[in-house]
Each structure stands twice: as structure tokens, then as C-alpha cells.
């Protein structure tokens, strides 16, 4: 049976996720791993928007915020189980993405970037200001979804960090699977076509505006689920999850590794998640270094790390 590149990629990802814990010296690494997977999920969604469809959004953290706060608020105010709250958050994000996306996707380049930025900041402002409901800038606690307890009942006893590592990893692999499926499908081709030339895409019958919106909504749902996971595993959430910096981090991770590929983006997520951990020593220098990294990579490795490395390897092999 010949394995497609898609299958190899997914297997590779799953294997890395499964094997990595062998090398973990402490449970702290499970935490970092989970964080990488959560970020990786969000950027996988952005690959669909930025890499496939060629659009941009600097406000996607807003959807992460919606997903995160859905998990915080729905159990308290609506009595929903946190897992269902995550679903609610995703649905809500999808609807809002559909409503906001229709007008702003008519724009291109800087205009679209700023409009999406505005949206993201608006969401984080609402979350920060409505302190009575959301606990304001100091954040609020999130209920435990009880999944670990359920596993315990059937005999699988994992520590908190182990469980979230495995669960986030699983969700990431599923998310990557969906995104890779999309790439080779008619919808994926339509997105990539409109990225290449909107005029030509229309000429072959692609409803460009409609497909851009689809990409926007799908990536919003990814961001929302990512936010929900973050809230559930941290058991706490603050409005920063929807903030400008988070949106920028998401986009940078996506583009860092290579916006066109899911694996590249996940790699970017890994790098930019690990970097601040290494840099906690240099807390003060964090912004400085982040900014520096962003500029250097974009200047010297325009297409992102993965494609640049691939190109160098190819040239080396000749």
C-alpha cells in the first residue's frame, strides 16, 4: 500500500507526539507540549486562511477569546458541561466570523489586516471591560471538564499534565488531518486558486467571496477550539487571550515556519512557544527579542523556515 504524503505527515506528527514524553525530564515539559499543541491547532486554522487562501487576519485571537470565555462562562451561567461549552464557543465563533467576515474580506492587504485587527481588539476590550460578567482584566476561573476523571473510571490514570498533553495532541492531529484533507480537495483547490489569481478563479466559476468567507469561518473555529483547550487546561483565563499580542503571535507562528504548510506552521508554533520559555530568564527582553525574531525571519527567510531549509537542502544535494 503506497502511503500518500498526507498520511506520512500525519503519522510522523502522531509518532513525534507519542514518543516525545520519553525524553521529558519533568512534568513541566508536558505543559509546554500541551501549549505547543494548542498554539499549533490555532495556526493550523490560520494556514487555511493565510497559506491556502492568501488572506490575512490580525485579529484571530478574538475567536480564541470567544472559545475560551465560552468555556468559562457557559458552565456558570447556562449550566453547560465545559466540553459542550467548547462546542458552543466554536459555533458562536463561526457565526461571528461569518457576520464579520462578509464585509471585511472585501478588502485586501493592509486594509484587511487593520480591519481584522480592529475586530480582535474590540473583542478583547469587551472581555476586559465587562468585568461584572467576565471578571475583567484579572480574568476568571474555568471549571474542570471532568474528562480525566472519566478516563480514571475506566482504568487509565494520568496526571493532569499528562492528560492534557495527550488530549491536546490528539485534537491537534485531528485538526491537521482535516486541514490536509482540505488541501487536496475541491474546496482546497478553490482556495489556492483564488490565492493565485482572483480574476482567473472567478473565470472558472469560483465564488471568490464565498470561499474566502469559508476559509475565514473555518480558521475562526480552529482558533476558538484552541482557546477553549487553553482555558480548560489552565483552569483560568484572562482577556489577553483575545488580545492584539496573541493575534500577532498566532500570525507570526504561522508565517515563521512557512504559511503554506500545516507542518511548517506547527513548527513555527513550537519554536515561538518554546522561545519565551527559554527567555523567561530574560523577561524584560521578551518583547525586544520577539520583535527581533519576527523581523529577521521575515527579512531573510521570506517564505518561512521550512521552505527556506528545504530549498537549501535541495541545492546542497545537487
Amino acid at each position, binding site marked *: 500500500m503506497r502511503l500518500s504524503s498526507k498520511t506520512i505527515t500525519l503519522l510522523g506528527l502522531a509518532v513525534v507526539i507519542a514518543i516525545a514524553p520519553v525524553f521529558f525530564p519533568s512534568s513541566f515539559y508536558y505543559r509546554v507540549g500541551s501549549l505547543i499543541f494548542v498554539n499549533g491547532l490555532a495556526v493550523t486554522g490560520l494556514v487555511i486562511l493565510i497559506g491556502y487562501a492568501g488572506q490575512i487576519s490580525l485579529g484571530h485571537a478574538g475567536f480564541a477569546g470567544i472559545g475560551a470565555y465560552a468555556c468559562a462562562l457557559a458552565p456558570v451561567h447556562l449550566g453547560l458541561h465545559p466540553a459542550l461549552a467548547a462546542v458552543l464557543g466554536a459555533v458562536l465563533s463561526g457565526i461571528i466570523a461569518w457576520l464579520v467576515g462578509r464585509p471585511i474580506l472585501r478588502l485586501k492587504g493592509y486594509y484587511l489586516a487593520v480591519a481584522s485587527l480592529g475586530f480582535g481588539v474590540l473583542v478583547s476590550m469587551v472581555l476586559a471591560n465587562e468585568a461584572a460578567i467576565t471578571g475583567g482584566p484579572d480574568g476568571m476561573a474555568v471549571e474542570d471538564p471532568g474528562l480525566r476523571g472519566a478516563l480514571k473510571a475506566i482504568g487509565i490514570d494520568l496526571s493532569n499534565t499528562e492528560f492534557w498533553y495527550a488530549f491536546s495532541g490528539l485534537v491537534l492531529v485531528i485538526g491537521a488531518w482535516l486541514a490536509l484533507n482540505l488541501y487536496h480537495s475541491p474546496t482546497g483547490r*478553490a482556495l489556492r486558486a483564488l490565492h493565485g*489569481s482572483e480574476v482567473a478563479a*472567478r473565470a*472558472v466559476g469560483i465564488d471568490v467571496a464565498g470561499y474566502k468567507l469559508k476559509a475565514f469561518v473555518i480558521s475562526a473555529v480552529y482558533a476558538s477550539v484552541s482557546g477553549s483547550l487553553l482555558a480548560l487546561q489552565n483552569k483560568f483565563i484572562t482577556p489577553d487571550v483575545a488580545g492584539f499580542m496573541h493575534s500577532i503571535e498566532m500570525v507570526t507562528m504561522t508565517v515563521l515556519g512557512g504559511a503554506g504548510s500545516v507542518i511548517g506552521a506547527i513548527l513555527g508554533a513550537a519554536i515561538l512557544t518554546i522561545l519565551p520559555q527559554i527567555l523567561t530568564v530574560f523577561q524584560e527582553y521578551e518583547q525586544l527579542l520577539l520583535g527581533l525574531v519576527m523581523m529577521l525571519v521575515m527579512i531573510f527567510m521570506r517564505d518561512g523556515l521550512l521552505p527556506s531549509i528545504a530549498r537549501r537542502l535541495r541545492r546542497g544535494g545537487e
Partner: protein
Amino acid sequence: MSLLQIEGLGIDFGGLRAVNDVSFSLKAGEIVSVIGPNGAGKTTLFNMISGVYLPGRGKVMLDGEDVTRLSPHLLARRGLSRTFQNLQIFHAMTVLENAVVGHHLHERGNILADLLSLPASRRSSRESEESARRLLDRVGLGRAAEQEAGSLSYGALKRLEIARALALKPRVLLLDEPAAGCNAVETEEIDHLIAQVAAEGVSILLVEHDMKMVMRISNHIVVLDHGEKIAEGEPAAIARNPRVIEAYLGAQATEANNADG
């Protein structure tokens, strides 16, 4: 009964009357060429017919339906397909994928099915791929299928655009300078291809500067100058038409004057 009917089409850009009061029609299986000196408004005319520009005046009727205000993707659904003067190839996709995308209207389906890679979605993709390969063979690009589109030569890309346009199974095909930049061999291949496609019942509207090709394959010629139709008729008549000759010679004379002065 004509398949495509253009009535009094016109458009202004700022103060410039780019196209004014152009009318003609196309029957099924007919090849009509639109010619004229540079700047006569031929591509602008194409852009109006194919929905890229909204005409300021006039009507475009497709099979009796008024499609003047329809956007390009809706026109594609009604069987109108086109190629572009400045190639609009999907550079980041392979040659095969470019041709497959042309099948969008046939293969598009449920986005959920695509996300989950359901059998229906995969079957769609397979079918389009098979059809795309046949089209690529037809235009002579069969062996380049897996190459990145951006790596092909200009002439090859022109043929790829035609393959992509044919994937739509159009009733009306607009070809904007399909032989431009092609050598004699390539031009002849495109010539044959166009004749074949027309023989299958597709109406073809052609903008072309290669006069030999135009005279050879056209059933009918429309001549534009400064945005207006100055002549229409069979190739032989057009070749002898004094207004046409003056339009071309006039253009050449003006260029010659400017070159000296």
C-alpha cells in the same frame, strides 16, 4: 439563433470612451475574431463580456438571457469561459492542478465532505483529475502535469490556460490573444485546437493580432478602432475593406511619425 449577442456595448474610463456602441453576434460553433490596432478596446470589450468590467451601456445576451450585469463566476456557470491576455495562471499549483481547478463547477461539493475526505469528495477529485489529464494531453502538456506551473514557458502556459478554460465545458469560449508570443509551430497547434473545439459546437470569440491565423480560421471578423466597430464581415471582405486598411495603416503611420519626431 445566436448564442451570444452583443448590443450597443460601451464603457467610459474617466473621460475616455474606451468602447462605444459595439454590436455583433455569435452562433453555436462559429469562430468570430475581433481585430483592430493596439488600443482599439478589444480586451476591454472582452472584459465587459466576461463580467470583469461592468458595461456603462448596452447589453450582453447569452442564449437569450440578459447576462450584462452578471459577475464572472455566474457567467462561468452559464457556460462562458475565457483566457487572459496577461496570463492568469495559478503559479503555486502544478500544471495538473491548474487544469483540475478548471473543473471547479463539476467537482465542487460539500465543504464538510472535503474536510473529512469522504468518498464522494475523493471521487470528485479523481474524476476531475482524469478529465484534466485528458485535456492536458489534448493541448500537448501531458508530460508536464506534475511540474509547478510557474516553471513552464510562455507558450506552454498559454496552452494551459486554454486547457483550463475548456475544463468548464463551455458553450462560449473567449480567447484573448491565444497565439501571442508563440512561434510558428505553437501557433499552428493552437490553430488546430481552436478549429477542433469549434467543430464540437463551442462558439469562439477570438482577439488576435496574427492576421494569417485570423484570416484562416474565422467565420466572421469584427474590426474595432478607437473603441468603435468600423467593419464586420467575412475575412476576404475585411481584407479588402478600405476603412480597415486605413485604420491599420493610419496606426502604423502615426507610430512612424512619432518615431521620427
